[in-house]
């Protein structure tokens, strides 16, 4: 069994299915435009921070956009940001994995936003901190499945242990960004969300 090949096929098929879903969802052009802008921001911020290993605001931006605009929006921001910024930074076999990892970060943040309407700053910070590690773990998975043999607990632990400091840096970066910028950015995004959404007032209420 070639688990690397199977995993990449599953991953690509699921990404294609998710994109088809996005295509069918009939997102409004304003939503598309906001996704593109947030993805662009998230993608470009990978570049100036390249000097610090694994510290970048991308995860933070993806998480807060998912949190404010909902799971699907968050997923698309994460996936598109990766796809486009990798065309500048270099595509590779890691692209689908990164797309999935960042997409899931946005998606889960959207679910968090649905469950907890007003989470505290600490709660969001912990969430972003945990995603710093989860992102690394998803990325380790492809490394482990593709290039390590035998696939057992031992090699799994060794692969994951070797990336601990990189993941820690990522998590600490997320922690800093979310703690200091989180609330402000969420307020800005919420304002834009209110601008593109509207609610209908039933005719009865106007008549009264």
């Amino acid at each position, binding site marked *: 069994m070639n688990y690397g090949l199977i995993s990449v096929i599953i991953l690509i098929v699921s990404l294609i299915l998710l994109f088809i879903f*996005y295509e069918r969802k009939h997102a409004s052009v304003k939503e598309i435009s906001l996704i593109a802008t947030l993805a*662009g921001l998230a993608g470009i911020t990978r570049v100036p921070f390249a000097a610090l290993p694994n510290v970048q605001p991308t995860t933070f931006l993806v998480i807060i956009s998912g949190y404010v605009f909902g799971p699907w929006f968050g997923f698309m921001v994460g996936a598109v940001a990766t796809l486009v910024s990798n065309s500048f930074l270099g595509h590779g076999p890691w692209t689908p994995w990164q797309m999935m990892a960042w997409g899931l970060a946005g998606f889960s943040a959207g679910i968090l936003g649905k469950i907890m309407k007003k989470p505290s700053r600490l709660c969001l910070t912990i969430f972003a901190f945990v995603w710093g590690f989860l992102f690394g773990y998803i990325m380790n998975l492809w*490394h482990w499945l593709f290039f390590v043999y035998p696939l057992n607990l*031992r090699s799994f632990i060794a692969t994951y242990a070797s990336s601990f400091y990189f993941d820690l840096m990522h998590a600490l970066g997320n922690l800093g960004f979310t703690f200091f910028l989180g609330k402000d950015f969420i307020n800005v995004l919420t304002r834009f969300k209110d601008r593109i959404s509207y609610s209908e007032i039933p005719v009865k209420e106007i008549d009264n």
Partner: protein
Amino acid sequence: MIKLHPFTVIIFSVVLFFAIIFYNHPIYIAFLLVALISSLILLGESKKLKDTLKYSFFTVVLILIINPLVSNNGVTVIYAGMRLPIIGKFKITLEAIVFGIVMGLKLISILLIFVLYGALIDIDDSFGFFSKYAHRLTLTLSMTTNIIHRLRLEIMRVKDVMVLRGAKLNEKNIFKRVKAYYPILKVVLMSSLEGSLNRAEALYSRGYGKGKRTLYSKLVIRPIDYILSTLSLIFFGLFIYGVFTDKGSYSYYPRLESYESKDLVFLTIMSIPMLINLLLIWGCKRWKFLKYKI
């Protein structure tokens, strides 16, 4: 540069990608690596080739180190050490080292396929191709690409304004500098989001999303696209045949397998369509006659 239909390039790269991921035969991997490197040099992409090799160096080293350390399966022990917690008995085997080297070569080959794909495809054509089937996704992608360039200008503009208003961006103290940069980040976020809504309204007022999309340029399928796609499909067919009949496989553990001639013959036959593809692409770049003929 030769102009190929995006579908041709995609199918060629995907088949090559799967073949490299699936097969572990050291000779086959080395052969593909040589073929990829030489075709990239012939296509005039040596700078990108060098960059990729530099870029992948760290990961390859990681693979070379981790594999021998974690793998206990080989029988040809080179070094046996003490018993460690979690990892267990520490030993380095020849098989694990060879496996690590081949996996490193495999990683480089996979990266080079991406370089080859980038060299062969025309980005505008591929956007045109995808917009036919997934226009929302393509719109999102092309807007994002556009915004990345726009953001750079936006950041420069906001920076100038902030400097004129008295922000000290070149502070020595890192905390003060971060504090000075923070308003810039917020202004850029707000103004770019504002801009995105304006763009959406512009698109809306031009009737985006009403009715079927029209195409600005038409992609032509030329004879060379048929030839290359057919060869890629033959390659894929052979690959599937190899997968199901277990031809061309190679096992590293417990002891390095010796080369069997039937595996080598199969892998050679399988590589022929791929090599013809590469040669044709190179030939079209080299000889104008061939380029206009097919």
